């Protein structure tokens, strides 16, 4: 039995800590909240992914009202369109283009709400423009062809790959130089408990 106790002690002694990294640079278009908030959450998401829709509707909405607006969490959206989703990259570009005219949240909202429709018919632009005024829609349709928009989506993908993102949605929670990656449509109740635990540390 002493061998068992020795092995147990060694295993616990070698217990490590989560990966460390600095806070991401401030984002203007795709972020919500205060940059100086104690917790930063980067959400790597694909507009055509059903789990991302679930996360957006059931977790990120209450998270925004309970933590982001109260200055506890800085929420950064990152585009991570998966190659198997034919219209995901186009949707990400439309959302970024809408973000340029201050309509990022409205674009995200309609893209997730009408995901089944545009994923089937490919009319991504029509879905986004349905929540914009005619002049805003013209601006967005012009902006979506801007190479900088495509580059910003590519940059998010590269950031995700560098962070080890393999699937969507993936949340990377950063707190006091430590990063905690979580994948899947995380339940809000469990996420809330985790954030509260971090904030009381």
């Amino acid at each position, binding site marked *: 039995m002493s061998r*068992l106790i020795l092995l147990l002690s060694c295993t616990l002694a070698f217990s490590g800590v989560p990966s460390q990294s600095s806070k991401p640079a401030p984002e203007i278009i795709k972020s919500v909240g205060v940059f100086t908030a104690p917790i930063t959450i980067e959400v790597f998401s694909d507009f055509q992914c059903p789990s991302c829709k679930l996360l957006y509707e059931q977790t990120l909405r209450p998270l925004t009202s309970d933590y982001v607006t109260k200055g506890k969490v800085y929420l950064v959206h990152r585009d991570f369109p998966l190659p198997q989703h034919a219209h995901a990259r186009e949707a990400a570009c439309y959302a970024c283009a809408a973000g340029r005219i201050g309509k990022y949240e409205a674009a995200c909202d309609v893209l997730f709400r009408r995901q089944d429709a545009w994923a089937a018919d490919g009319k991504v632009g029509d879905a986004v423009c349905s929540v914009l005024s005619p002049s805003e829609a013209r601006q967005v349709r012009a902006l979506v062809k801007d190479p900088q928009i495509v580059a910003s989506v590519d940059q998010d993908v590269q950031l995700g790959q560098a962070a080890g993102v393999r699937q969507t949605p993936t949340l990377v929670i950063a707190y006091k130089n430590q990063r905690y990656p979580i994948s899947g449509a995380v339940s809000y109740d469990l996420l809330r408990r985790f954030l509260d635990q971090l904030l009381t540390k």
Partner: protein
Amino acid sequence: MNWRRWLVVFLRVVLGAVFTYAAWSKLRQPWLLFAMAIDAYGVLPEWAVMTLARALPWFELTLGLLLLTGFWLRQSAVAASAVLVVFFAVMLRSYIKGLQIDCACFGFGEAISLKTLLRDGLLVASSVALTVVEFRPASAAKQT
């Protein structure tokens, strides 16, 4: 030491190391992260998710150390087989359903894929083999 004893030592050391590493990779992270990973499978109610997230890493550690040391080998081989079969079944279910979730087998950041299924399948086969060899009488092994 005959081939049967060598096989038992090899299988229990491999499985013991795997279980110990799996436990360590979970215990080094906040337990609520593991709870969220279990919850993503969508098979358990929240109270069961919370209980399992707290208990499973310690159970895996105990099982791993028992296998490594060889104490209560029959019981630990049966327990390892049962646990691995359950893991394999829920992973297979998630893969068939097309859930893009974390395997959470050895820490986080590894999606369920054919690779993870193959790895878990090999572990199931190893633990079942260990159980069979342990329960099979030595005389029966000699006759074959």
